[in-house]
C-alpha cells in the first residue's frame, strides 16, 4: 500500500506537478499569442520579447518597492509591482501599434507581412530589454518559495518520496484558470469582446456597424500587455529572468497556441498542457515508479524510458504534429487565414 | 446520366441533405429549386466531390463517382460553378480563364523548362479562346484586370465563363444568375440552350429566378429540407400547391396569375 502511495507521490512530484506548472506557464503565454491571432490575425513573433519587457518593467518597480522596504508577506513583492508593469507594457504596445502595425493594417497587408514586421519589432524589443536590464540572470523572487517542500512532506507523511509544491505553481495555475475564464467571458459575452471578434471576422463590415477599429485594437493590445506581463512575471518568479530564455519560450508558446487551435482561449490552455506533458511524460524514466508499484521479482533493471530526454522537444513536436493530423485546426477548432 | 441515390449529408446533428434521390438525364437542362437552406448547394458539393456524403451513392453514366475528389470529376467532364464566387483574385481575368483547361502541355515542369515552343502555340490558342468567352460575357475590357477587383456580378460571369473554356459533359450551375443583369442573363440563358442543343452538354441549374427556370429547364426538381419535394415540368411545378407554399409564395403566384390573365 505505501508502495503504491510512494509510486503515486513520485509520479506527482516529478511528472504531474512540474508538468502542470510548466503547462500553465505556457498556457498564459499562449493566451496572448492566440488573442493577437484571433483579433489582429497575425502570429506575433514579438510576444516572447513583450513578455521579457513586461517582466523587466515589473522587476524595476519591484526593486523600487523593495528598496523602500515594501513587501507582500509570503507572496512575492513582484505581484504588487505587476499592475505598474502591465501599464508600462501597455503603453509600449500601444505605441508600437501606433507607429508600426497601424500602417500595415490600413494597407490591408497580408498576414505574413505582419509576421515579418513583428520580427522587426522583436529585434527592437530585444535590444531595448538588453539595454536596460542586461543579458544576465535576474532573480527577483522573494516571499515563500514553497507551499510545501519535499522534505516537509516526507516528515509529515512518513513516505519515502517527497512532494514539493511551489507557491508560484499554484499562483500560475490559478491565474491561468482565471485568465482564460475572463477572456472567454469577455470575448463571448461582452459588447466590446464581441466587437473585437467582429473586427477580426470582417473588418469592413465592422466599420459599417459603427465599431471603432482603433478602440478594438487598443483594447486588444492592453489585454495582451496584461497577459504577457503576467505570464512573464510568473515564469520569472518560478525560474528566473533572462532575456534570451524569454525569446526561446516563444516556440513552445506558439506550439501551444496552435495545437490548441489559434484564436481560441480554451485551446491555448489545452495546448499548453499538451506540450508540457508530452515533454515530460514521453521521456520519463518509469524505473522508480515501477520499482514501487511492481513486486520485487518484476522490478525493471533498465530505466524503462521510451526515448532519452535529448529528444524531448522532438517528441513534443511529434505529438503536436500527430494531433494536427487528426485535428487540422487544433484541438479546439481554431481559425486559419 | 447522373443519379443520386438516397443521399445524406449531415453537419453535426443537422441533416442538410436528408435522403435525396434524383436523376439528371443526359442532354437535359434540369432545374433545381427550393427554399433557402433546402440543401441544394450541399447536394452540389457532394456530387462534385467537395464534401464527402454521410451516406448514399452518386453515379455518372453508371459509374460510381461517390466521394471522388473534384479534380478527378473535372477530368470526367463534370464542371461546377460556385454560388459565392471563387475567383483567383490576384490573377487577371484572362488568366482565370486560361488556367481552366486540363492537361495543358505547360503544366508539367519539364515542358515549362524545355518545351517552350509547344507551350507558346498552345498559350496563343488558349488566350484566343479566353478572349472569345470574355467577349461573349461583355467583359472583354476587363481581360487584364485583377479578378479580385471585379464587381459582384462580373465575378459571377467569370464563374460561368470558366465552364465555357472546356468541353464538358455535365455542368452544374449554382445561381449563376444572382447578381447578373437580367438582360445579360437572357443572353446567358440562350447560350446555355445553345450549348445544350449543339454540343450536347447536360446542365443542372440552381436558380431562384422563376422566369429563367421556366424558360430553360425541363424537368424541374424541387428540394425542401434536404429531400426532393416534387419533380416535373416547370409549368406543373409552378402550379403545385406544396411548392407554392414552401417556395414560391402567393405573391408571385398572384403576379403570374395576373400576367397570364
Amino acid at each position, binding site marked *: 500500500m505505501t508502495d503504491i502511495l510512494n509510486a503515486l507521490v513520485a509520479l506527482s512530484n516529478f511528472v504531474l506537478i*512540474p508538468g502542470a506548472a510548466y503547462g500553465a506557464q505556457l498556457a498564459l503565454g499562449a493566451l496572448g499569442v492566440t488573442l493577437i491571432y484571433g483579433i489582429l490575425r497575425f502570429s506575433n513573433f514579438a510576444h516572447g520579447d513583450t513578455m521579457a519587457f513586461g517582466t523587466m518593467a515589473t522587476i524595476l518597480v519591484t526593486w523600487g518597492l523593495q528598496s523602500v522596504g515594501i513587501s507582500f508577506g509570503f507572496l512575492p513583492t513582484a505581484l504588487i509591482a505587476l499592475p505598474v508593469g502591465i501599464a508600462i507594457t501597455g503603453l509600449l504596445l500601444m505605441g508600437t501599434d501606433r507607429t508600426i502595425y497601424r500602417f500595415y493594417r490600413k494597407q490591408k497587408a497580408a498576414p505574413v507581412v505582419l509576421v515579418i514586421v513583428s520580427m522587426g519589432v522583436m529585434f527592437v524589443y530585444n535590444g531595448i530589454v538588453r539595454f536596460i536590464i542586461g543579458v544576465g*540572470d535576474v532573480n527577483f523572487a522573494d516571499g515563500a518559495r514553497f507551499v510545501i517542500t519535499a522534505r516537509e512532506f516526507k516528515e509529515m507523511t512518513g513516505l519515502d518520496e517527497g512532494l514539493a509544491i511551489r507557491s508560484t505553481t499554484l499562483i500560475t495555475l490559478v491565474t491561468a484558470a482565471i485568465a482564460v475564464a475572463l477572456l472567454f467571458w469577455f470575448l463571448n459575452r461582452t459588447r466590446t469582446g464581441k466587437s473585437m471578434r467582429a473586427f477580426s471576422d470582417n473588418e469592413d463590415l465592422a466599420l459599417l456597424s459603427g465599431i471603432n477599429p482603433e478602440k478594438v485594437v487598443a483594447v486588444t493590445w492592453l489585454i495582451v500587455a496584461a497577459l504577457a506581463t503576467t505570464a512573464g512575471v510568473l515564469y520569472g518568479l518560478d525560474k528566473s529572468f533572462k532575456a534570451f530564455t524569454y525569446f526561446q519560450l516563444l516556440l513552445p508558446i506558439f506550439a501551444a497556441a496552435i495545437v490548441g487551435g489559434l484564436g481560441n482561449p480554451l485551446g491555448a490552455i489545452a495546448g499548453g498542457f499538451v506540450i508540457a506533458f508530452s515533454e515530460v511524460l514521453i521521456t*520519463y524514466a518509469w524505473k522508480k*515508479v515501477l520499482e514501487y508499484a511492481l513486486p520485487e521479482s518484476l522490478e525493471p533493471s533498465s*530505466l524503462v524510458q521510451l526515448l532519452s530526454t535529448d529528444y524531448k522537444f522532438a517528441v513534443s513536436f511529434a505529438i503536436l504534429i500527430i494531433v494536427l493530423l487528426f485535428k487540422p485546426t487544433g484541438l479546439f477548432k481554431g481559425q486559419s487565414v | 446520366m447522373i443519379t443520386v441515390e438516397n443521399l445524406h449529408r449531415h453537419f453535426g446533428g443537422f441533416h442538410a441533405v436528408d435522403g435525396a434521390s434524383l436523376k439528371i438525364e443526359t442532354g437535359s437542362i434540369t432545374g433545381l429549386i427550393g427554399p433557402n437552406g433546402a440543401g441544394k448547394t450541399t447536394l452540389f458539393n457532394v456530387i462534385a466531390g467537395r464534401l464527402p456524403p454521410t451516406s448514399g451513392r452518386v453515379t455518372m453514366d453508371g459509374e460510381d463517382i461517390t466521394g471522388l475528389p473534384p479534380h478527378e470529376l473535372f477530368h470526367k467532364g463534370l464542371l461546377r460553378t460556385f454560388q459565392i464566387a471563387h475567383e483567383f483574385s490576384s490573377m487577371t481575368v484572362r488568366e482565370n480563364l486560361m488556367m481552366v483547361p486540363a492537361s495543358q502541355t505547360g503544366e508539367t515542369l519539364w515542358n515549362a523548362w524545355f518545351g517552350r515552343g509547344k507551350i507558346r502555340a498552345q498559350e496563343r490558342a488558349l488566350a484566343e479562346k479566353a478572349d472569345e468567352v470574355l467577349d461573349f460575357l461583355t467583359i472583354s475590357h476587363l481581360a487584364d484586370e485583377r479578378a479580385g477587383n471585379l464587381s459582384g456580378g462580373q465575378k459571377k460571369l467569370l464563374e460561368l465563363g470558366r465552364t465555357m473554356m472546356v468541353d464538358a459533359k455535365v455542368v452544374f450551375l449554382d445561381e449563376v444568375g444572382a447578381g447578373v443583369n437580367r438582360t445579360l442573363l437572357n443572353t446567358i440563358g440562350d447560350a446555355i440552350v445553345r450549348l445544350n442543343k449543339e454540343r450536347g452538354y447536360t446542365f443542372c441549374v440552381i436558380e431562384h429566378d422563376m422566369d429563367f427556370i421556366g424558360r430553360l429547364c425541363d424537368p424541374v426538381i424541387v428540394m425542401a429540407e434536404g429531400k426532393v419535394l416534387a419533380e416535373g415540368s416547370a409549368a406543373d411545378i409552378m402550379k403545385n400547391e406544396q411548392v407554392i407554399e414552401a417556395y414560391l409564395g402567393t405573391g408571385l403566384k398572384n403576379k403570374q396569375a395576373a400576367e397570364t390573365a
Partner: protein
Amino acid sequence: ESHGETVKIGIILGFTGPLESITPDMAGGAEVAINEINETGQFMDGAMVEAVRADSTCIDAAAATAAAERLVTTDGVAGIMGADCSGVTGAILQNVARPNGVVMISPSATSPALSEAEDDGMFFRTAPSDARQGEIMSNVLMDRGISEVALTYTNNDYGKGLADSFQSAFEAAGGSVTISAAHEDGKADYSAEVASLASAGGEVLVVAGYTDQGGKGIIQSSLDSGAFDTFVLPDGMIGQQIVDDLGAGLEGSFGQLPGSDSEGATMFQEMATEAGINPTGIYTGESYDAAALMLLAMQKAGSTSASDYAGAIMEIANAPGEPILPGELGKALELIAAGEDIDYVGATAVEFIEPGESAGSFREIEIRDGAIETVGYR
C-alpha cells in the same frame, strides 16, 4: 621602429546569442590584460594595444566568419582572442585565420576535435581539455567514496565531451552512471530531464553545463522537487553568482575547475573586481591568459606577424623560466626584453601541451556557507 605604433587584437565572442550573458566578462578579462600591458608602456618599444570586439554569435558560422574577416582584413588585427563556441571557432580557423596566417587563442572552445584540426600552428586554447577534466572529476568522486551518480550535460561539444570522458573514467574506476541525459541550454523548463534523472537515482548529480544556462535550471529544478541535494560541478558550473542565486541549496556541493596551487587565480580575481567585471565568471581567467600570452609572444618574437610569434607561444607558456602571475605582465615584458625566459602561469596556471592547448591542473572546491572554498589541488 615600432615605437608609438598601435597593435590591434581581435576579440571575437558571442556577444549576442546563447552565450551573451557570459561573453561580456570574458571580453573584459582579455581587456584587463591588454590594459595592464598598455599601462607598462613597455610593449614592443612603446606600442599600444587596442582591442577590437566582434560578434561571433556563437551559432552562426557564416556571420562569425564575416566578422572575423572584417577584423583581419579591414582592421588588420595581429591576432584573435577567441572564439567561444567550438563551432564558430572551427569555421573562423579554417576560413579566416589559417588562410590569412593569423593566430587564434580560444579561451573556451574545448572540443577534442579541434586538437586534430589542421591549423598550421596557428591555433591555441587556454581552456583545459575535456578529457583531462573527466578523469579528475572521476577521481574527486572516488576519493569521496561516491560510486553511483546521475549525469546530465549540456548538449554541445563541451558538455558531451566532458560527459563522455567522465563516464568512461568513472566506470573504469568502478563507479556507475545511472543515466546520462543531455539538456539544451536556454530552454524554458527542465522538468523532464530532472524527472528522468531522479527516477534513475544516484548519490549525487553531476552537472556538466554552464552556471547561467541549462545547468542552473537543472539544479534549481532538482532542488525544488527534492530530487538531489548534492551536485558535482565542473568548471562551467562554478561561479559565485549561482551560489548566491541558489543559496543554501548548493551547500555541500563540490567540483573542480582549472587552477593550480598558485596565487594566480586570487590575484586575477582581485584585478577583475577592480576592473568591474565578475571575477568568478566562467572563462574570464582563460580570456585574460589568452590575451596575455598572445601579447607576450609578440614581445618575445619582436614582431606582430603571426608567422613570427606563433612559435613563441609555447615557449612562453611553459617552463623553464621565471613564473609570471596576473598583474606581473610588466615584469614579463621586461624579462623578455632582457632576453630571459619566462614561464607564464597566469590566472589559470597555463601549461601548454601539444598541439597548443592547456594541460590543465585543477582546483577542487566545495561550497561551504555560501562561498566557494578551495579544498585541494589535483
